[in-house]
């Protein structure tokens, strides 16, 4: 029961994190009315994941490894792109709300921006959703599966949703600056983790050579174990990365963190004073 619980939990956690942040952000910029679109996007992603999972299982049974790994890698790359865009766009919007930009900025969520946020929520859910369904179908349709195994899986999914809700509730409460700082930093780590993940998937698919082990913490903190899964979802932690994965992780993390962090108050104050 515990195995399926953690299996479902780690699939759901990353999606829940991103959706929770998007929802909290919309509330904070006084755009609650866009929330139903996000919910609809999430619902569509869930429905599409179930449909795709069933389709794959009952037609070809299983995607060829190259196809599967390439698709997962591409989905991760797409997620990194949209996440990075969202990070800097959110930060710009946040500054406009605080009145820190000199010229007026149109605060209204343009149709394009709404679509991008809904699109990000959709991508986040469908990435994890299809894999979750492809894991769930054999478990649910196998005649040796006990009710405790199914219950563990359902509980894992429920806890993921609860975590997403908790992130939303907490994000709505904190002040705007802290919200952007914390969520922005977390999302940068998540995106860096996705870069490493994309490299791993392209490696498994045979598209690139991704061999060797930079370090191995599997005995101490396995990334598919209970605590490791959480760190993996939040910070892109990998217990035994290859040198290429490690390089990719930091090649994204360091420049983006730097660009995100150089927007310090002291720089703005200096600009205003001069």
């Amino acid at each position, binding site marked *: 029961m*515990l*195995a*399926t619980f*953690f*299996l479902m939990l780690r699939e759901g956690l990353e999606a829940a994190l991103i959706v929770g942040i998007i929802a909290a952000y919309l509330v904070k910029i006084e755009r*609650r*009315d866009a*929330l*139903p679109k996000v*919910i*609809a996007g*999430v*619902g*569509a992603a*869930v*429905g599409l994941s*179930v*449909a795709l*999972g*069933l389709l794959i299982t009952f037609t070809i049974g299983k995607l060829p*490894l190259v196809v599967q790994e390439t698709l997962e890698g591409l989905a991760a790359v797409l997620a990194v792109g949209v996440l990075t865009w969202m990070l800097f766009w959110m930060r710009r919007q946040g500054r406009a709300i605080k009145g820190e930009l000199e010229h007026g900025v149109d605060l209204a969520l343009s149709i394009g921006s709404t679509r991008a946020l809904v699109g990000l929520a959709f991508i986040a859910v469908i990435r994890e959703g299809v894999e979750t*369904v*492809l*894991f*769930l*179908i*054999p*478990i*649910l*349709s*196998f*005649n*040796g*599966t*006990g009710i405790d*195994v*199914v219950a563990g899986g359902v509980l894992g999914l429920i806890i993921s949703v609860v975590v997403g809700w908790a992130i939303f509730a907490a994000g709505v409460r904190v002040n705007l600056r802290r919200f952007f700082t914390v969520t922005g930093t977390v999302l940068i780590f998540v995106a860096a983790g996705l870069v490493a993940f994309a490299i791993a998937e392209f490696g*498994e*698919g*045979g598209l690139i050579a991704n*061999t060797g082990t930079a370090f*191995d913490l*599997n*005995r101490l903190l*396995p*990334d*598919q*174990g209970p605590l*490791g899964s959480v760190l993996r979802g939040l910070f892109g932690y990998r*217990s*035994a990365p290859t040198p290429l994965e490690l390089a990719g992780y930091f090649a994204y993390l360091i420049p983006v963190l730097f660009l995100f962090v150089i927007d310090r108050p002291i720089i703005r104050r200096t600009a205003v004073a001069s």
Partner: protein
Amino acid sequence: MPRTRRRGLRAGRAIGAFALASLAVAACSGSAASTAPATPVPSGVIAVEAAKDSAYSFTPSAITVAAGSVTFSVKNAGNEEHEFEVFKADGTTVVDEIEGLVPGLTKSLIVTLEPGTYQFMCKLNGHDQLGMKGTITVN
């Protein structure tokens, strides 16, 4: 309550219900199968048990098979999640894999193997370093 918020809540509930219904359909198709008796592994299929002899082992760990299309039926006899990954002789080039093998579950994998040696292992959480691996000799 403003109209837009009511509409949003209704939409949200409808989508939630649809998602739950979809999962219920998947579950119902499963429960119908659960009343059928367990089918034995047909000949021509190689049965492998994970975590049977010890928590991190594959039984058998040395498999010999004829070249061509090979079907593995892997059962998780332990109490942790495992994987079954087939590699070429170098131990790094992936041929194919079974993921999400939770305790009690049996999953199949069909691979086309040419003559030579292959390795299989569970790399989840580094189980291969605890001995969860084996070799396949294809002739």
